[in-house]
C-alpha cells in the first residue's frame, strides 16, 4: 500500500503544492488533475523517487519509501513525458536495451500497444503517437506493482487509448496500482481523483 503524508514540492523558489495526502491500496488507481503548472509532473517524479520531497513522507507498507531509492525503484515503472527512445535502434532493440529480453517477451510487450508489426523498424521512423505507445509498452515488460504515468495518452488515437485502458484494468485486477497525471479523459473505473490546483499555496 502506498501512502503519501502531506507531501510538498518546491521548484526553483516557488512552492508548487503542499499538504498532498492520499492512500492507495492494491488494485487502486489515482488520477492527478489540475491546470498546467499545478505540479502533476512534479508529484509523479516525487513518487518515483527522482525528486526528494520538500516536506512530508511517502510510505510503502508503512515503511519510508524514499529511504532507499533503489529499492523503491524496483516497485514501480515510470513513464514520464519524455519517451526515452533511441532513434538509431529498432523498436525491439529499444525494449531490450535496458535489460536483455527474449524476443518473445518483447513481441508480447509490443502486442499490448499494437506495435508488433514494427518490431524491426528503426525507432526514428515512428510517429509521435507510436513513440508514445513504444514508451508505454515498457509497462508490460515489468512486474512492478506501481505504475507512475505522466500524461500517458498524449498523442494517442482513440483505439490506442481504449487498449491502454484495458491494460490498466488488467493490471489493477492483478493487484497493481496506477497513478496517472492527465488532462485528457481517461477511463479508470473506481479511481480516486486528486486535484492539485487546490493544493498550491
Amino acid at each position, binding site marked *: 500500500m502506498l501512502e503519501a503524508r502531506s507531501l510538498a514540492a518546491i521548484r526553483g523558489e516557488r512552492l508548487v503544492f503542499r499538504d498532498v495526502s492520499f492512500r492507495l491500496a492494491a488494485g487502486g488507481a489515482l488520477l492527478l488533475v489540475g491546470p498546467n503548472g499545478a505540479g502533476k509532473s512534479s508529484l509523479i517524479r516525487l513518487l518515483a523517487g*527522482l525528486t526528494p520531497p520538500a516536506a512530508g513522507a511517502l510510505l510503502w507498507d508503512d515503511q519510508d519509501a524514499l529511504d532507499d531509492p533503489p529499492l523503491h525503484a524496483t516497485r514501480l515503472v515510470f513513464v*514520464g513525458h519524455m519517451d526515452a527512445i533511441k532513434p538509431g535502434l529498432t523498436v525491439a532493440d529499444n525494449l531490450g536495451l535496458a535489460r536483455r529480453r527474449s524476443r518473445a517477451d518483447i513481441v508480447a510487450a509490443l502486442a499490448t500497444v499494437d506495435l508488433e508489426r514494427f518490431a524491426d523498424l528503426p525507432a526514428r521512423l515512428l510517429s509521435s503517437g507510436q513513440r508514445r505507445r513504444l514508451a508505454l509498452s515498457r509497462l508490460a515488460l515489468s512486474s512492478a506493482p506501481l505504475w507512475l504515468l505522466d500524461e500517458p495518452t498524449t498523442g494517442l488515437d482513440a483505439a490506442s487509448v481504449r487498449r491502454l485502458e484495458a491494460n490498466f484494468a488488467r493490471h489493477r485486477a492483478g493487484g497493481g496500482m496506477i497513478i496517472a497525471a492527465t488532462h485528457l479523459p481517461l477511463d479508470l473505473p473506481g479511481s480516486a481523483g486528486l486535484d492539485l490546483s487546490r493544493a498550491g499555496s
Partner: protein
Amino acid sequence: MRAFFALIRRELVLALRHAGDSVASLLFFVIAASLFAFAIGPSEQVLAGIAPGVVWVIALLAALLPLNRLFAADYEDGALDQLMVSGLPASAVAFGKIIGHWLTTGLPLLIIAGPVAIMLRLDDAAVPQLLLTLLPGTILLSLVGGMSAAVTLGARGGTVLLPLIALPLMIPALIFGAAGAVATHPLSEFAMLLGLLALFLPMAPLAAGAALRAAVS
C-alpha cells in the same frame, strides 16, 4: 549486479550503433598527432623527445570529445530518468557509464596510441612503458571526465564548462603519466598514478551519482 552489467552492455550497444562518436575521437587523436609531425618537421631527435608528452596531451583531449554527450544524450531524451529508476543506485549508474566511456574511448585510444607514438618517431623499446602509463591514465581520464560531465549536466554552457573543470583536474595525472613514460626508473611515477586512481575510483562515481540525482530532480 545483473542490472549493472546490463547497463554496461547497454552502453556498448549504443556506442556500436552510434559508432561515430568513438571513431571521431580516435580520428582526432591520429590527426592531431600528425599535425605535430607536420608542424615540427620529421627530425627524429625532436619528435622522439616530445612524443610521450604529445601522445598524453592528445589522448587527454581526444577522451574529452565524447564526454559532453556521455550523460547529456540520456538526459535530453528521458533515458536518464529511466536509468535512475532502474533499481541501481545513482553512483552505480554513473560508474557504469564511466566504464562504458573507458571501453568505447579509453581502450581504443590505448590501442591506437602505440602506432601513433611510433609515427612520432618514438623508439620502439620506449612504447610499452608509454602504454603502461596510459593504462591508468585513460582510466583516470574516464573517471575525472565522467565526474565533470555529470557535474555540468543541465548547466547552461555545459559544453564549455566541461573541459574547464576536467582539464585542471587531469594535471596531476598528466604530470606523472608523461614523466613516467620517459623515466628510467618510473616506480614513483607509477605509484603516484595508482594513488590518483585510488582517490578517483571511489570518489568520481560517488560525486557523479550525486550530480546525476541533482540533475534529474
